[in-house]
């Protein structure tokens, strides 16, 4: 167990092979091959419109790929029986780009949603868990009873982070976790993600185009360009990747 009653996780392995996805004539993913080992924090970088979010949605089962395989702990998420896939998905957490908090519920019900599946049960215990999660992400107890619309964007992001980790996931996905935040709040979120994933021991898969974020969060970085992974390596090799497209992206050069 780690602090606040959260269990230490063993993480989950993820292996993606030959993943393709098109919308009409537009090829978004063109044979993505990628993997992460249990407990690893993998960051996928890439420009806007390169298919990062589509990749994440395919892995999460929110969008079916055209071809290819996605193995999470050796379960084929494109072909395995539904019950097996659901079992794996129950071990995943997700932080959406815009938070995606439920407007109709207060903060503590949002945080414990994965535990209650939206049912109003064990309210006292659930609120206590939510307050512990809020503390983990640096928010006060008073926030628990507010609605998402009553808190700032940065606070919403932290509440969404608390929701993503509340059910002790083995695999956590972060979709542009720092988009729309000022540099100070972005830095806070980056360190929270790093500490939480290291603390819990979960595998983390983050998509971002924020290089500062990638450097803090990642053990390993992969770059997606025109639907393919064009480079992958440890975060400390990011500055010296030897790949001109990665260099251009990392240093923000126009050409």
């Amino acid at each position, binding site marked *: 167990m780690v602090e606040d009653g959260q269990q230490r996780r063993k993480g989950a392995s993820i292996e993606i092979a030959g993943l393709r996805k098109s919308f009409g004539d537009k090829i978004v993913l063109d044979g993505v091959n990628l993997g992460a080992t249990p407990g690893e924090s993998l960051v996928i970088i890439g420009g806007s419109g390169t298919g990062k979010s589509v990749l994440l*949605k395919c892995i*999460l*089962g*929110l969008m079916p790929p055209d071809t290819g395989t996605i193995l999470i702990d050796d379960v084929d998420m494109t072909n395995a029986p539904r019950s097996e896939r*659901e079992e794996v*998905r*129950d071990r*995943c*957490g*997700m932080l*959406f*780009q*815009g938070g*995606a*908090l*439920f*407007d109709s519920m207060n903060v503590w019900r949002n945080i414990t*949603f*994965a535990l209650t*599946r*939206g*049912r*109003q049960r064990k309210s006292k215990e659930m609120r206590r868990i939510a307050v512990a999660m809020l503390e983990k992400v640096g928010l006060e107890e008073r926030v628990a009873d507010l609605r998402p619309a009553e808190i700032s964007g940065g606070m919403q992001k932290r509440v969404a982070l608390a*929701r993503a980790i509340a*059910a002790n996931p083995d695999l956590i996905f972060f979709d542009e976790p720092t988009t729309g935040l000022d540099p100070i709040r972005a830095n806070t979120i980056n360190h929270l993600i790093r500490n939480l994933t290291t603390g819990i021991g979960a595998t983390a898969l983050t998509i971002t185009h924020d290089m500062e974020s990638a450097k803090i969060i990642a053990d390993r970085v992969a770059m997606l360009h025109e639907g393919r992974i064009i480079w992958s390596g440890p975060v400390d090799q990011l500055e010296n990747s030897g790949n001109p497209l990665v260099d251009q992206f990392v240093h923000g050069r126009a050409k």
Partner: protein
Amino acid sequence: MMETLIQVFSRPGAAIIALFASIGRASIFAARAIWSAMRPPYYPIRLIEQLISLGYFSLPVVGLTALFTGAALAQQIYVGGSRFNAESTVPAVTVIAMVRELAPVLGGLMVAGRVSSAMAAELGTMRVTEQIDALKTLRTDPFQFLIAPRLFAGTIVMPLLVLVANAIGVLGGYILAVYRLGFNGANYLETTRAYLEWDDIVSSMVKAGVFGFLLALMGCYHGYHTEGGAAGVGRATTNGVVSAFLMILLANLIITVLVFG
């Protein structure tokens, strides 16, 4: 020649295929929601919330619609009937028209205007802000959590609303006939009771149940499939209301022909 013919028929043909495709998609959507509702976990609190939102809060608008319609109907029947000395038919025609047609149809349209739009807007907003995707990642089936309670609430609550609307519509006719047209109150009620049959009430309730299901289905279907941000939510809301109206009118025609034809 052949090419011109194909061009002439291709557009209406495509529209008809699109219409059948939409009906098919909406039917699969409804079947999926009903199937989801049969499996645990169940969400009774969500159902109660929808019953209150759909039923209790629609009472004023349905009640007022029925009151005004019943009164106006009595006046029209009186004026029309006086052309062939049939003023005394006011109570009988009013109750039959209200119960068989006007209360379920106008009630359905009013509730569709209020509820289908709200459902489409709420679910559409949830779709574009990724809240529906978030539900899926939080071990929850959106069909069980969002759609099924709305469809069941619509089907349960509309017959009750229409039952109330029937009574208020008759009351509207009574008030106008007695206080403006000089009818005897006791006679009016006696004639109303004599001409009202159980079949009328049952058909009224059946229609209302079907309309309730359809108006919730159209709101949910268009909201759930929203695409394209705020403009998409606007389109979903409009489509939800318009398609609910059309479905209610079409279903009314089919049921009327089947029951009274």
